[in-house]
């Protein structure tokens, strides 16, 4: 028998110690490079792994779990080398996969207790933890139902429960809100936020949904096309170094966007007809008045400004800037 995880892996430990470290990791599927010389640090607490579909987020998690061997590079999780100590790592990890996954023919409480036993819990403890965890994720009423009869939202919750049952020091959550209705999604995000901020569980949340990451995480690693394009605390990435404006114009939009870009500003569209303009410090002119600089630019080129409002930088701006979205 061995004792449960040492206390230094908990979020209370020195914040400088990353829970996950990747150094020049390249993963290839045949000729396709899913990860390209990725180097990243995931700090303690809740960290978002953000990127569009196909960016390599799931591949990174699977490589960290030891499912996929990288061609080159080194990875460590909780201070343990992934190539040499995969079992010791997985004993302290909880993984919530992206796709539907369960053990066939079991009800929820048996399934979760079984997962607990697979992770090394004694049978009695595993059953007790299964009940507790199912209560926590909101499946207490449905815990004697066969998992195969669950709705999509319930299946997401049961996947979280099986990842939590052995009390991991680090959770990998791969697209945890996929397929959930708005209410269920909010509840799932509350759970994740609670785990990361009140229950001392380190977690990595892989998602392409910016609001999910922004709500639950303190730091973020942004990926695109198999590369890490930005990483750090969300507040630092959003803040200073420039201002963000909501802008709507009348006139030739592509030409004006081009002018803004030439002036050192960055634009990207939103779902509505309002675009967001990021004005880096110094790009707004010598007097530092960014609004005036945009008005002046519009006036010089005969474009009407219909709407210009200072906005708060969001993770979306960070993401758009990092992946070069227009």
């Amino acid at each position, binding site marked *: 028998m061995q004792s449960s995880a040492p206390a230094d892996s908990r979020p209370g430990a020195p914040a400088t110690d990353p829970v996950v470290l990747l150094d020049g990791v390249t993963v290839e599927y045949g000729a396709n490079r899913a990860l390209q010389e990725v180097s990243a640090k995931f700090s303690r607490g809740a960290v978002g792994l953000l990127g569009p579909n196909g960016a390599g987020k799931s591949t990174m998690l699977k490589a960290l779990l030891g499912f996929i061997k990288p061609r080159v590079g080194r990875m460590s999780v909780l201070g343990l080398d992934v190539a040499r100590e995969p079992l010791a790592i*997985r*004993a302290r990890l909880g993984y919530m996969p992206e796709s539907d996954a*369960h053990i066939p023919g079991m009800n929820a409480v048996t399934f979760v207790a079984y*997962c607990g036993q697979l992770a*090394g819990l004694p049978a009695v403890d595993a059953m007790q933890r299964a009940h507790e965890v199912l209560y926590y994720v909101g499946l207490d009423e449905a815990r004697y139902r066969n998992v195969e009869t669950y709705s999509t939202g319930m299946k997401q919750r049961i996947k979280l429960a099986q990842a939590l049952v052995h009390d991991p020091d680090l959770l990998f959550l791969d697209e945890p809100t996929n397929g959930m209705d708005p209410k269920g999604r909010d509840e799932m995000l509350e759970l994740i936020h609670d785990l990361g901020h009140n229950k001392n569980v380190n977690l990595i949340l892989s998602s392409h949904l910016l609001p999910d990451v922004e709500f639950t995480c303190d730091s973020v690693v942004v990926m695109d096309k198999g590369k890490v394009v930005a990483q750090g605390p969300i507040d630092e990435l959003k803040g200073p170094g420039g201002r963000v404006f909501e802008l709507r114009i009348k006139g030739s939009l592509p030409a004006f966007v081009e002018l803004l870009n030439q002036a050192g500003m960055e634009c990207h569209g939103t779902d509505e007809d309002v675009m967001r303009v990021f004005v880096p410090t110094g790009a707004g002119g010598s007097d530092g008045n960014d609004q005036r600089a945009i008005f002046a630019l519009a006036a010089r080129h005969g474009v009407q400004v219909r709407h210009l409002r200072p906005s708060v930088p969001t993770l979306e701006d960070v993401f758009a800037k990092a992946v070069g979205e227009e």
Partner: protein
Amino acid sequence: MPIHDQSYRRYGGLKTSPGRAWSVIARAGIMTMIRKRAFMGLMLFAWLPFVVRAVQIYVAANYPQTETLLAPDAKMFRDFLEQQDFFVFVMTIYVGAGLIAQDRRANALQIYLSKPLMRAEYIAGKAAVLFTFLMLVTWVPGILLLFLQVMFKGSFEFLKANLFLFPAITVGALLEALLATFTMLALSSLSKSSRYVGILYSGILFFTAAIYGAMLAITGDTSLSWLSVSSNLHQIVDLIFRQTPRYATPWQVSLIVVLGLIALSISVLERRVRGVEIVT
């Protein structure tokens, strides 16, 4: 507000060291089967030949006039194991077809392999489920018959004269169970449908037997018996029960085929049992 809000809390107990998960998988698989009435019915049915043989041994031991006709010998034990082939076949399909296929259908492999267990442990756990039941219908009744013979006769005379029967039953049952277990697990890892796996397994057994039957009809020579999976087993079992081999194929060839099939199955399992399916 409730006086006790049950919420998530950290686990302060002890965890077992990695390396024992296979027994958790095996226990769960065995219990799942035992809970099925149809399976228990099949198991009872598989023990009917044992009852018949037990009666035969009892009659031979207690009525000397029947001894010439019913007296147990090495051939009787070999024939008993061969009779069990049918139940081995049915049980292999019933228990084994879904062992990995159903996990693949439910994407359970990534759940299993995200826990502190190696792929070999997962395979060992699944193999233990089928292997246990196959030994329960071959080795256990075979050995019990041996003990019944001693009990009914009231002497160790037969056992002393046929001491090789204990290892012969053990090796024969072991070989048959291992071959069925690994080939079935390998096939089960290739598909997400238990039904398809069952058909595939039956197909392989019947197809190889049919090919050999056709070659035998054409050439009239039994030296091609290595083409049939079941004939290879029979050839080896004949040898270990000290009976005249029924085919002209050298036993070494049959053994190579059987061991080769087991090795091939393990190789398939090594490739197919992974936490992630990579399609390039």
